[in-house]
């Protein structure tokens, strides 16, 4: 014991302790982490990471920094997770075209394979939500009504009753959710892109996310029926009022003019 206490003050002691601590946590992590990845998978994974890094340095590093650490033009991506990349790039929001109030949805310029590679690279920088699997977001069998209730409680204040979108401050907006891919809806809830708060599984369990996806599919997709006729954008009284003025009153004034012009002429004879 004496020896140890004597060397405690050795200049290298701190380094040794640090190494030991790192080894311990690393060991613990290996012991507890799901270690079912086959060797072959791992090499494929590291290949993907390499490929992703290459794509990243070409397309993204100018804003997010060469190591994804962030610059004045874009936030750090360490720890945002593969789901964030899949969402941002898969909806065309990234790479950002120009700085503005908010990154808009655009044409997607990467293939899904490339997106996966970039995602793998970003995921390798720090742990974050991973891309959900199909059976996580597949709305089959979900409770639509429950989803509606959740949507109105948690989402409608920005996205409108049926996800038609809405304005936020200073030119930012909550986009329309019409026909958004279920995977992307799921990822958005998971990662909270742009001004959106995130809804991790601890606040909104997977089943509820599915319910919401099912609800959106029912009320705002190509399969939605509108029992009352034209939806008028689903925007409520403003578009209804406009319609009533233009077609209702406009039409009636035109008809009044037409009727008034057809007056019974006093017979001259």
């Amino acid at each position: 014991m004496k020896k140890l206490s004597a060397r405690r003050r050795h200049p290298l002691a701190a380094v040794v302790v640090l190494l030991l601590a790192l080894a311990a946590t690393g060991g613990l992590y290996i012991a507890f982490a799901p270690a079912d990845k086959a060797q072959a998978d791992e090499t494929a994974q590291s290949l993907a990471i390499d490929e992703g890094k290459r794509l990243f340095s070409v397309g993204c590093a100018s804003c997010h920094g060469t190591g994804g650490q962030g610059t004045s033009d874009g936030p750090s991506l360490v720890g945002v997770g593969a789901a964030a990349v899949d969402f941002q790039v898969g909806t065309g929001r990234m790479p950002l075209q120009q700085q503005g109030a908010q990154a808009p949805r655009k044409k997607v310029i990467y293939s899904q394979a490339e997106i996966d590679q970039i995602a793998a690279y970003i995921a390798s920088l720090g742990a974050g939500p991973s891309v959900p699997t199909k059976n996580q977001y597949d709305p089959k069998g979900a409770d639509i009504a429950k989803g509606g209730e959740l949507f109105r409680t948690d989402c409608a204040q920005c996205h409108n009753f049926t996800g038609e979108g809405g304005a936020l401050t200073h030119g930012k907006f909550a986009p329309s959710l019409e026909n958004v891919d279920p995977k992307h809806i799921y990822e958005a809830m998971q990662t909270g892109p742009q001004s959106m708060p995130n809804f991790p599984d601890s606040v909104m369990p997977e089943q509820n996310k599915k319910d919401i996806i099912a609800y959106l599919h029912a009320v705002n997709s190509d399969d939605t029926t509108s029992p009352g006729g034209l939806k008028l954008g689903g925007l409520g009284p403003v578009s209804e009022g406009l319609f009533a003025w233009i077609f209702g009153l406009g039409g009636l004034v035109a008809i009044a003019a037409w009727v008034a012009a057809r007056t019974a002429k006093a017979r001259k004879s």
Partner: protein
Amino acid sequence: MSSTTRNASRRQAPAGERVADWADGRLGVYSLAKSNMRKIFPDHWSFMLGEVCLYSFIIIILTGVYLTLFFHPSMNEVVYHGSYVPLQGQLMSEAFNSTLHISFDVRGGLLIRQIHHWAALIFIGGMLVHMMRVFFTGAFRKPREVNWIFGFLLLVLGMFTGFTGYSLPDDLLSGTGVRFMEGAILSTPIVGTYMSFFLFGGEFPGGDFVARFYTVHILLLPGIMMGLLVGHLILVFYHKHTQFAGPGRTEKNVVGMPLLPVYMAKAGGFFFLVFGVIAIIAAIASINPIWAIGPYRPDQVSTGAQPDWYMGFSEGLIRVMPGWEINFLGHTLVLGVAIPLIVVFPLVLVVIAVYPFLEAWVTGDRREHHILDRPRNAPTRTGLGVAWLTWYFVMLVGGGNDLWATHFHLSINSITWFVRIAFFVAPVLAFLVTKRICLGLQRRDRDKVLHGRESGIIKRLPHGEFIEVHEPLDADQLHTLTAHEQYEPAQLGPAVDENGVERQVSRGEKLRTKLSKGYYGEGNQIPKPTVEEYKEITSGHGHH
């Protein structure tokens, strides 16, 4: 037709005549009808706008009666088991449940609901347009001020009938609107809380308001409106309709078609046209799809929550008002809500009611007017009307600021600031511009009278000059363009009375003189051509 029936009809008077005879013998309808049915009604498209209101009101009543057969004005909670899948199993009030039932499970229910709601939007829009026509033509002048007030009350009551009806289904959108109204009530200094508790039977939303609104919506307000409407129409009959100036038309006669049969036939046909337009709209376009909106829960809210358009200006007022709040002797005064909703909201409406009296005071004119003004010949009035409309429209823009932002890719903050500034500036600009336009049109009329109408024919004179040939107007046109009378601006009168003592001039008098100058003073109307001027110009000099 067979010969036997022909013989029969020869022997007996037609059925209609017999019924009329029967009724006349008992009710004396013939003389009543004779004196009233020959009333003359002049023809002009804008005179039919009142009919648009009348017919849409009738349509609202008819469809509303159908809806009452199925609607349950109750806030008891039930679980939905109807046919709209995305709501099955949800808790909702019976009111909401029955509205879904009407929409999906009652035959024709959805169509009737949509006709009812579309007709309501068109009804109130119709009233506004009708009111504009009455305003811009000066039809509100003596003796029709009372009828203007009746109309004004109908407009305000119509707005509130619409609002209460819109709240009945107890959906998330209208519930938010009721909450908004509650906020307005709460912001009333001192009594706000008491009033809110009284209205909702306790804490908002409570379990009462749907039933209470129901009574107000289907009985109280429509009952009052029905009475006002009958009074309104009786007064139109009694005063007889106004008419535009024209040859043969005076303040003492009305030129047009007799009510029976011509006007009645047209009006009857027009009813069906109005019904047709509303029914087509209701058949093709969805309105207030409560199933997509969901049942009301005070803990939920959606973006883009606006009231129906006629309440939109109040929404605009609240959206652009800064959220001021002060503490006054221990009372919190929510000025950010009280100023727009308790002060400005009524003001926007009350100026409508008082305008006829204001104008009468300024002109000091106590005569009756049955000949309408062309809007250009009353530039200040027309300017004020357009200024009001601009004001109203600016507030509507404010009420939809979020949709302007998303659809035109603007910042909602910039729109809000735009509206704040425009609220004060736009009406003034609109007033000035409108007045200029009116004066320009007056000048053109003057030119037309004096120099004739531009014929489009270019003539070359012997010495090479090109001129456009102006055709003189015929007497009818000359009459129409010069029939309006022009007021002299009021004068303050001598500063000293007959004894040389300085006269006491009241402040009101001074104000009146100032306003009168603004209305009719130099530069505020173009003197119409006099007979002398006309003779002088047309007597041969000049080549026009």
